[in-house]
C-alpha cells in the first residue's frame, strides 16, 4: 500500500453540486480532501482486507447466534432485557442485513487491525460507492491516473443487488434524523439504490414515525412493515416507542442483532 500525493480537480465544486454531494461542512471547511490517494495491490485487497472482513463478519454473526440463546451473555453485553425476545426472534427469522462498515488500521506491512465494526448505522457510503468512483473515472480520463487504475469496491452494484434480494414486496420506509446532513445524504443514497432495485420506497424523519395501536405508521397512515433506519438500535430502544408492541410487527434493516 502506498500513500501518494494526488492532484485536486479544479472543478470539483461543480461536480459535487451535480451529484448532490455536500463537499463542505456547515462552517465552510472542506469535507472532501483528494490531495492524497492510497494505492493497493490486488493481493493486499484480497488476502488482507477482504479476508479479514469476511472472518470478522463471521465472528460477529457467531456472537449474535450465541447471544440469542444465552441470557447471561445478553446481560453481559448490556442489552436491555425487554429487547431480548425481539433480538432472539429476529435472529431465528434470519432477518437480513444490508451492509456494515469495518474500520481498519492497515499499512500493508501486516494484517489489518480492527478499530470498529459499525454494523448498525454506517455513513460515508455515498462517498465510498459513488464519489470515489467518479474521482477515479475523471482523473483517468484526464490522464492523471494510469489507464488500468481500478477501484476495489463494488459497493454500489452490491447494494442494488442486495436490495433485490431482501426487499420483499412491501413498501420500504427509510428513516433518520433528516436534519443531519450526513444521515440524510446516506439515507437518500440507499433509498435511491432500493429504487434502482425496483422497490417502492418512502423517506421520513424519525419523528414522523407514528404509533397506532400495534402498528408503526407514517404520516399518511400507511403501516411501516419494513423500515431501514439510520438510527442506532440502542437509541431506538431507549426512545418512547422503543418498548411498544408495534416493534415486533415491523421488520428492520439493520436487524436487531446488529
Amino acid at each position, binding site marked *: 500500500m502506498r500513500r501518494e500525493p494526488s492532484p485536486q480537480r479544479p472543478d470539483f465544486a461543480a461536480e459535487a453540486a451535480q451529484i448532490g454531494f455536500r463537499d463542505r461542512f456547515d462552517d465552510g471547511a472542506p469535507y472532501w480532501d483528494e490531495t492524497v490517494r492510497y494505492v493497493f495491490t490486488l493481493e493486499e485487497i484480497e488476502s488482507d482486507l477482504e479476508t479479514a472482513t469476511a472472518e470478522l463478519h463471521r465472528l460477529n454473526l457467531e456472537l449474535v447466534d450465541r447471544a440469542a440463546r444465552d441470557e447471561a451473555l445478553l446481560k453481559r453485553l448490556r442489552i436491555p432485557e425487554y429487547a431480548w425476545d425481539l433480538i432472539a426472534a429476529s435472529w431465528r427469522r434470519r432477518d437480513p442485513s444490508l451492509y456494515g462498515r469495518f474500520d481498519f488500521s492497515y499499512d500493508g506491512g501486516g494484517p489489518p487491525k480492527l478499530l470498529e465494526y459499525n454494523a448498525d448505522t454506517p455513513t460515508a457510503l455515498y462517498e465510498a460507492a459513488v464519489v470515489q468512483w467518479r474521482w477515479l473515472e475523471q482523473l483517468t480520463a484526464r490522464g492523471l491516473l494510469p489507464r*488500468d487504475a481500478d477501484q*476495489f469496491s463494488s459497493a454500489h452494484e452490491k447494494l442494488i443487488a442486495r436490495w433485490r434480494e431482501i426487499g420483499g414486496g412491501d413498501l420500504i420506509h427509510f428513516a433518520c*434524523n433528516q436534519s443531519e446532513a450526513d444521515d*440524510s445524504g*446516506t439515507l437518500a443514497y440507499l433509498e435511491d439504490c432500493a429504487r434502482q432495485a425496483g422497490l417502492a420506497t418512502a423517506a421520513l424523519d424519525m*419523528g*414522523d414515525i407514528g404509533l397506532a395501536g400495534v402498528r408503526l405508521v407514517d*404520516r399518511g397512515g400507511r403501516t411501516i412493515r419494513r423500515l431501514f433506519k439510520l438510527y442506532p438500535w440502542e437509541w431506538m430502544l431507549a426512545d418512547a416507542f422503543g418498548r411498544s*408492541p408495534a416493534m415486533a410487527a415491523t421488520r428492520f434493516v439493520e436487524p436487531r442483532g446488529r
Partner: protein
Amino acid sequence: MADPPPPHFGRRAPPEPRPAPRRPDPQALKRKRSTTVAVGAVGLLALGGFAVADQIRARNCASGDSAAANDASTRCGGAGGHFGAGHGWSSGGGAEAAAFGGFGATGHGFAGGE
C-alpha cells in the same frame, strides 16, 4: 490499439447515471413535524378493523391464551404502559389515533456512523 485491460480490471462497473440524491428541505421538515396529527387518512374502516383486532387481543389475554402472552406483538398486561404518558399512546384496547414523536429524541444531533 487500446491496451488490454489488466486481469483485475472491471471488478467494479461504473454507477448508472441517475438524479442526485434529494436533500430534504429543513423548513419543510419543521412544518411537517408541527402539523397536527389527523387520523382521517387511516379511515373509519381501518379504525374499526383495529378496534376488532384489539378486542380479540384483549380477549386472548383475558383468557390466558399462552400464544398471545408469549408473542411480543400481542403481549398482555402493562408491557406498553412504559411510554404512554406524553405520547398519547396507551396499551388499552380500542381504535387509536396515531401518536408521533416517540422516536428521534435520543438521536438529536446524532451524526450517523461517523
